[in-house]
């Protein structure tokens, strides 16, 4: 049977660590999960001590609202926190405070761009919750035990749940990348997947292409990188397709992606599914986001990548690839727009060319971030080349020196005497002295060997030690040769 008989329906659940300074329900600092010593960012509240109570971090709510708005969601005027009950040593209270029936954001969508064009992926909901702690399993001389680190317990998370609207790995990756871009863009999350700031879970089912009804789905957890996501989804699609082609049935279960073995492994089957006994959190009144609050958050939102893309392509005529390189980092966009503001006369394309080639190359080699560069100096350099004060290749040298020394381009040009010679009388005499010095070549040219014009041009440029404006030289040379004809 042919492979294309089945199609996949894939939804994503993404846990996003919000970029707040303090935790979701207490004032403990959110610390680096790798470098901070264990259990140093904890207090009675996030340890779940007897008698403590949670208090909602308003900053976390605002970041969640921003994310909800960027995902075109409805923002609930009243949302309700709920307790999700289960026992685990990394869960201090024996329940996680989450949102269940009434999430903060719901009924949204995100537009993704694929090789098949633009596609709309529905976002079912986005809700606030708290993270758990972290266990480290130890084995010392055969004695096994676990260590609990509660630094992460209580860190605010936003869980973003899509509908199963994706059908290919390409779409899944496009959704994931775009989501990460949006969240980083808004400062909602660092999106640092290596540090667990964004964690993906996929639900995946397959059905015959002509079947309306969705198949039995499996959930795949531990997708800690885009690569893992791609491999796990391809793997599961292949497995399920094989099963269905054989006439078998897919079992509803939760799987984990094993990075080491490049395969999915069963974590639990349907029968072991937990009953979380959700009920409204009595320690927290309903979360009310009234209109003034919502409007204030809306007003604080920057222009979103989609709008930037449209403007850069339309008004400025930038190409798609360059636009993506700009918008993938908000800092790039900020730098680019600072340049535009500093030099409104320059063609945006010229700025982008310098930025994405020579500037980015230097930043990469030197491991520097773009916010270390002064856009005003940078556009001075681009202008110097654009106005013919120096030529392109001199411009590259001046750029590097400018970045390394912090000196202004004009100071560098001045100090090194790099000005192009655009003075017509000087070039006129340079050209005539070169023509006088090479009578044989001039004669051959006049006899019809036209390629010798280039050779003569090179001689003039050499005489000028590369500082002559090539355009002016070319015109003057042609004029004098024509006069000899």
């Amino acid at each position, binding site marked *: 049977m042919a492979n294309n008989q089945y199609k996949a329906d894939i939804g994503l659940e993404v846990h996003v660590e919000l970029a707040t300074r303090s935790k979701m329900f207490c004032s403990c600092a959110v610390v680096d999960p790798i470098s901070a010593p264990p259990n140093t960012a904890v207090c*009675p509240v996030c*340890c*779940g*001590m*007897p*008698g*403590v*109570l*949670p*208090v*909602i971090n308003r900053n976390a709510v605002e970041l969640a609202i921003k994310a909800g708005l960027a995902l075109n969601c409805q923002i609930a005027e009243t949302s309700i926190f709920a*307790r999700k*009950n289960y*026992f685990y*040593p990394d869960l*201090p*209270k*024996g*329940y996680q405070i989450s949102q269940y029936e009434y999430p903060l954001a719901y009924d949204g969508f995100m537009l993704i761009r694929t090789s098949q064009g633009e596609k709309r992926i529905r976002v079912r909901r986005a809700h606030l919750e708290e993270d758990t702690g972290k266990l480290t399993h130890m084995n010392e001389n055969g004695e096994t035990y*676990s260590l*609990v680190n509660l630094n992460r317990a209580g860190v605010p998370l936003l869980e973003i749940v899509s509908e199963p609207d994706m059908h290919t790995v390409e779409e899944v990756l496009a959704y994931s990348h775009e989501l990460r871009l949006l969240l980083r863009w808004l400062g909602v999350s660092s999106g640092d997947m290596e540090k667990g700031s964004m964690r993906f879970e996929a639900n995946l089912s397959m059905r015959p292409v002509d079947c309306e009804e969705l198949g039995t789905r499996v959930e795949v957890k531990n997708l800690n990188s885009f690569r893992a996501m791609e491999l796990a989804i391809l793997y599961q699609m292949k497995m399920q397709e094989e099963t269905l082609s054989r006439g078998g049935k897919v079992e509803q279960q939760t799987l984990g992606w094993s990075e080491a073995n490049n395969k999915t492994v069963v974590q639990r089957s349907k029968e072991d599914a937990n*009953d979380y*006994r*959700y*009920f409204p959190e*009595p*320690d*927290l*009144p309903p979360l009310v986001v009234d209109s003034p609050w919502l409007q204030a958050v809306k007003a604080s939102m920057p222009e979103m990548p989609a709008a930037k893309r449209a403007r850069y392509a339309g008004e400025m005529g930038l190409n798609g690839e360059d636009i993506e390189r700009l918008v993938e980092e908000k800092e790039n966009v900020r730098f680019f727009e600072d340049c535009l503001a500093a030099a409104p006369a320059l063609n945006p394309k010229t700025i982008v060319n310098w930025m994405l080639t020579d500037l980015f190359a230097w930043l990469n080699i030197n491991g520097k971030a773009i916010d270390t560069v002064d856009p005003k100096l940078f556009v001075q350099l681009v202008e110097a080349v654009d106005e013919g004060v120096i030529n392109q290749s001199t411009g590259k040298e001046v750029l590097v020196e400018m970045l390394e020394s912090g000196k202004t381009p004009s100071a560098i040009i001045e100090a090194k005497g790099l000005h192009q010679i655009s003075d017509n009388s000087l070039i006129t005499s340079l050209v005539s002295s070169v023509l006088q010095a090479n009578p044989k070549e001039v004669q051959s040219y006049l006899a019809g060997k036209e390629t010798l014009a280039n050779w003569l041009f090179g001689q003039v440029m050499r005489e000028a030690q590369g500082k002559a404006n090539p355009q002016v030289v070319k015109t003057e040379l042609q004029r004098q040769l024509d006069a000899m004809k």
Partner: protein
Amino acid sequence: MTEITAFTVKEALQALETGQVSSLELTKAYLERIQRLEPALHAFITLTPDAALAGAKAADERRAQLKKAGAALPPLLGLPLAVKDVLCVKDVRTTCGSKILENFKPPFNATSVQKLLNAGVVVLGKTNTDEFAMGSSTENSAYGVTHNPWDTERVPGGSSGGSAAAVAACFAPAALGTDTGGSVRQPASFCGVTGIKPTYGRVSRYGLIAYGSSLDSVGVLGRSAEDVETIFRLMAGFDPRDATSLDRPVDEPGCAGAADLKGLRVGVPKEYFIEGIQPEVEARVREAIQVLAAQGAQIVEISLPHTSYALPVYYLIAPAEASANLARYDGVRFGLREENNGVIDMFMKSRGKGFGPEVKRRIMLGTYALSAGYYDAYYGQAQKVRTLIKADFEEAFKSVDVVAAPIAPTTAFKIGGHGDDPLAMYLEDVFTLPANLAGVPGLAFPVGFDAQKLPVGMQLMGRPFEERTLFRAAHVYQQATDFHKQTPAI
């Protein structure tokens, strides 16, 4: 002269102010009395005599300094106080009457406790309670039963039985209690003292070890409405650590200057005078209502039609919340940890050994009520009926200012009297549960005795945040009677 341990809060503060006694003398007097009589009563789980004496000495020094400087004194400077053992007191063992917290010393003070410490109180110790405040007799404590000072063969009520007994026995001029379903009012009634269950949200719950989070409130027990109000007012107010506490200003005292009850409309709900109520209890309550009438109050018969649902609703909601609140006792971070064979085994053994039978019963009840497939029928339905009970009060308070009712169907019963019958014990709370479900304040005070000289109490319930009206009415009543001044002969 009255023995100094029999002082009311007001008298004690006056005596401290005039220099008639020092805080150290007063604290010593209480500690000596406790030492002498505690074996017969067992009101405390933990006594903190060293800290109390040091605190009293510091209070006396502070008083001298501030007086010298002509500065204002904290309002309760040097006043000894007992605290129910479900409220966190920093670095003092806080057990909740449970084995699972046998060695737990909280690293912080409950906000209610902290506010009173700021006002100058000296903590004598932690009083006995039913385990996690689950009970109506203090028999469910893992640290032994408390005896009623009026008859040591009887229970003091519960769960704040230790605090009620301590006040009745003059172990302290006042004590903190908590009330989730009647746990301040019922023991106040059994021990013949005055006790307030404030409006939900009036006093911070931070540091009150949770039982039923939507019902729990921190209250005070004392020898008079005036005393209780003094302490209550210092605990009340918004707390940024408790998102359910409300930002409402604390009223001026209701007791001050109250001479009569002219204009006060007192509702008497017919659903609270049911068959099975001890005739003397009904008689004393009706007599007390007549006293209120004699002071100028207008008595109105009213109906709170959903009263009979309070018991089943409470025994779904409170255990459901408790089942989650008590999940943190897993042996991982604090409290009892039993040696184990892996983590599940540790959870089961620690909880199995740490919790007593009533706590286990309520955890199971609550877990069941929240389970998939049962939620709507039990917890969900209970929440709906709860709104009807609340609506009963809202409706009643359109035509009356306070509701007067009995607190418990009987006076104090014999220790072991309810045997192994949890339902009989649950019925103890039938008149106190509605105030918790509705979130309204309730004030209990003594209104006489039965034939066996056991105290009978009555409660006044009021509109949310109108504790002041309750205090005023009880104060006027106490000006006209002397039941609250009687003390047991021990």
